[in-house]
């Protein structure tokens, strides 16, 4: 950067980088022949699904692979280092030299803000450590500088934060601390590995804005690793697409995202739900996946019959007591759900959207009777469930089935999938003979698009997407009329997610299933739902048809949620800074109950919480 020629040669040249794990013939090549250039003050996004090798590439640059058991098998990484005063191949540096580069000239932010900070040291001490190491600052100077950078990432009360411990901070705040810590030595390269994946969408918007803003101020080059095409489109100048450890396509962000050449990139982009893509339509629509087994038209969009609801929820209230004090009396309550009311009709998908802590999962669990309500009524096909004796209530559990977010944790690893699938049917006495069970398992597997002869396999033999299909098959075993899908597609890669969403819609069309689709992902909601309910702090603040809520959002929170979703529109950068502030907590002192919201009709079937003025 000192002369003009330097700024023309890229800051970092990666050529034919290969990484292997393990030794000998069993060695796995997890990065295979990756090349890219990173220029000054540019952002390169490395995009790919899980297992594509994108994170490993970034760890290779920092020379941290050996701690994971990997090693660089070939290629070079040329970096213009000021500290070492020469252009170096990062792979050839001694550990001592590497340590001068790490955290100083190349810094990194990791995906999980909740575990990235050491729980036993204060924020000030963790930031000061870096500053003392690379800049030789004294304790008080390091503190001062740390505070400056905490201010820079717009953390309120930076001075007090220096003496706080990580557990006293929310996830969004921790990620800001990580950014401040990574940038405090003014690195030439910032590597951000899925920095917002674990965060709520409104918090994600804030974090992305901070990274963009500071990059412009400090003229840092950024390597941004992500699976989210929307985020990439908002952040990147250049894009490298990776799949199964190999580079697939590279180029400018506009070129790659608007006119993808490689078939894989095209597929990936087709699977990305784009918010706004459904404008003007009234019914849900399948993803158009190239090469999929059925065409979108084969699933007819039937209008929903709204004469008789499957499920009616009325004034459902769920609270959790928090005890404290000498006699461990209830001092606070978490108001997880406050007077929530809605209906679901046969063959309809109602999406329950909101951010963490909004109470959406609590509502789902209460409907499944995994959680007892404080008050409220639930009618299933007109029958009041909560007033029934406990034994009769149990029988209704089979009518609703739950699909959880984590397909790895929700199948018993020691049971064959056949046994897992048939278990609910056995519990509820729907299957009596062995032959019947076998037929039923085969039938269920075929329904979710898996071969019938996989019944004898164990869960670890399936991929994440296949496991989620198995969970759906298990939910179908009792012929339920309602399936509660709690973030059921959130943990899946985007191409797999599109397939599972399509499967859900297809099953709905075939069997007239109703779904309560609980999620934070507005873009998926737009695809799958007939109606949408937005939850905020335990209350529904807006409910209406998908078209009403998406095309004419009324409540400020709905608007905020929609505007925070990253838009896949390459070349267009959001300029307006997102709203600041954390998501407030639903915990309140006893006696300090939240004011109940009243929903006001704005049009037919579209209700919005009245604003307290």
């Amino acid at each position, binding site marked *: 950067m000192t002369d003009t020629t330097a700024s023309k040669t890229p800051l970092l040249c990666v050529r034919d980088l290969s990484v292997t794990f393990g030794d000998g013939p069993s060695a796995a090549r997890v990065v295979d022949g990756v090349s890219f250039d990173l220029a000054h003050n540019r952002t390169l996004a490395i995009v790919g699904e899980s297992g594509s090798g994108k994170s490993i590439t970034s760890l290779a640059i*920092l020379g*941290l692979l050996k*701690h994971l058991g990997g090693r660089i098998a070939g290629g070079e990484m040329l970096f213009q280092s000021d500290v070492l005063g020469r252009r170096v191949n990062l792979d050839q540096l001694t*550990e001592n030299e*590497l*340590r*001068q*580069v*790490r*955290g*100083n000239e190349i*810094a*990194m932010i*990791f995906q*999980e803000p909740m*575990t*990235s*900070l*050491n*729980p*036993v*040291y204060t924020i000030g001490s963790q930031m000061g*450590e*870096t500053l003392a*190491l*690379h800049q030789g600052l004294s304790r008080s100077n390091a503190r001062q500088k740390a505070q400056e950078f905490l201010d820079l990432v717009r953390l309120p009360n930076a001075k007090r934060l220096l003496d706080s*411990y990580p*557990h006293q901070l929310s996830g969004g705040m921790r990620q800001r601390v*990580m950014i401040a*810590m990574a940038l405090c030595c003014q690195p030439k390269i910032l590597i951000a590995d899925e920095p917002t994946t674990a965060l709520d969408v409104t918090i994600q918007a804030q974090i992305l804005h901070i990274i963009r803003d500071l990059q412009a101020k400090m003229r840092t080059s950024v390597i941004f690793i992500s699976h989210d095409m929307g985020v990439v489109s908002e952040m990147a100048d250049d894009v490298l697409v990776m799949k199964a450890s190999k580079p697939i396509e590279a180029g400018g962000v506009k070129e790659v995202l608007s006119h993808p050449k490689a078939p894989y990139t095209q597929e990936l982009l087709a699977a990305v739900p784009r918010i706004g893509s459904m404008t003007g339509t009234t019914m849900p629509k399948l993803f158009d996946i190239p090469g999929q087994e059925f065409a979108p038209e084969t699933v007819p969009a039937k209008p929903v019959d709204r004469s008789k609801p499957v499920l009616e929820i009325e004034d459902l209230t769920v609270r959790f007591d928090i005890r404290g004090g*000498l006699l461990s009396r209830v001092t606070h309550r978490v108001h997880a759900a406050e007077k929530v009311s809605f209906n679901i009709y046969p063959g309809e998908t109602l999406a329950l959207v909101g951010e963490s802590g909004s109470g959406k999962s609590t509502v789902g669990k209460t409907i499944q009777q995994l959680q007892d309500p404080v008050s409220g009524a639930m009618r299933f096909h007109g029958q009041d469930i909560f007033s029934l004796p406990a034994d009769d209530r149990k029988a209704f559990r089979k009518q609703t089935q739950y699909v959880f977010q984590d397909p790895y944790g929700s199948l018993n690893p020691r049971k064959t999938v056949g046994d897992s699938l048939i278990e609910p049917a056995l519990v509820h006495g729907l299957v009596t003979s062995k032959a019947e069970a076998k037929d039923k398992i085969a039938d269920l597997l075929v329904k979710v698009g898996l071969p019938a002869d996989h019944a004898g396999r164990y869960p670890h033999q399936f991929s994440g997407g296949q496991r989620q299909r198995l969970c759906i098959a298990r939910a179908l075993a009792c012929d339920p009329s309602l399936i509660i899908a709690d973030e059921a597609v959130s943990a899946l890669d985007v191409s797999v997610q599109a397939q599972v969403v399509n499967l859900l819609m297809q099953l709905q069309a075939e069997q007239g299933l109703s779904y309560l689709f609980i999620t934070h992902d507005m873009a998926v909601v737009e695809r799958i739902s007939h109606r949408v309910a937005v939850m905020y702090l335990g209350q529904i603040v807006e409910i209406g048809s998908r078209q009403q809520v998406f095309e004419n959002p009324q409540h400020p929170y709905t608007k905020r949620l929609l505007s925070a979703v990253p838009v896949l529109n390459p070349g267009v950068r959001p300029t307006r800074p997102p709203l600041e502030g954390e998501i407030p907590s639903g915990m309140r002192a006893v006696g300090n109950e939240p004011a109940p919201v009243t929903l006001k009709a704005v049009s037919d079937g579209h209700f919005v919480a009245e604003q307290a003025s």
Partner: protein
Amino acid sequence: MPVFRFILQRALQAVLVTLAVTLFVALAVRLTGDPAVMMTAESSSVTEEDLIRIREALGLNQPFYAQYLDFLKGLITFDLGNSFFRGSIADLISIALPSTLILAVASMGISILISIPLGIHAALHKGGISDQIIRVLSLVGLSFPNFWLGIMFVLLLSITFPILPASGFETWSALILPALTIGIILTATNVRLVRTQMLETLSAQYVMVARAKGLSEWSVIYKHALRNAAIAIVTFLGLQFGNLIGGLVVVELVFNWPGMGTLSIEAIAQRDYPLLQATVTILAIMIVAVNLAVDLVYGLIDPRIRVA
């Protein structure tokens, strides 16, 4: 202040534990034989009247609950009374307790000094040759009875090569063999614990972050990882203290170490009820106190556990 409340709770707990332990010991020892008969076993001309007089003198003619209440009364007023045969119990314990504590601290110290570096080394070289050797040695250590190891040390280092004294208390060198015996037995389990805990913390994200900051490996391991692993290690050491006391009793006997263990065993042999009750009570209070200290140390190590 919640910390004081916490200590109060635990002190109450300690009282209950002491009551339960002493009651059990007092009952059990009375089932094993009559001290009056034991005392007079050697002489042949003992009449029934003599025995009754002895029992009266020792207070054994009173019902059990009265004897036990007497003992409790003494405990509350810090007056441990007299042994049946050996005079003031307080005097006996004032010699035995410090020597046991010295031995306990020395063996715990030896174990920590060996197991922490070895455990960390094994964790860092997981699956390597040194890791495997450490694991095998720890298994070997686990399978030794402590008295056997003690006797082997005596045979080797006091008799075959007379470097260290086999017994006694007079010189510091006498401490080495008993402390080494218990220390090595404790190390066998501790090294495995340190290894497992370090493996867990070393794979935590914040350790990778610390490395990405450019910190030296030393700082990553000893500053960032070890302090997090320490929470579980300290818990275990606290629980281990009970076992340590059990081990001490046997090893003290092997090395003729004038500690609480030796004192307890002598008291059992002579059916010296007051002395036995006193030693057991003090050992029980010690174990409870160590566990209380461990709970308080948590707060120092981990800010998340600090009472808010």
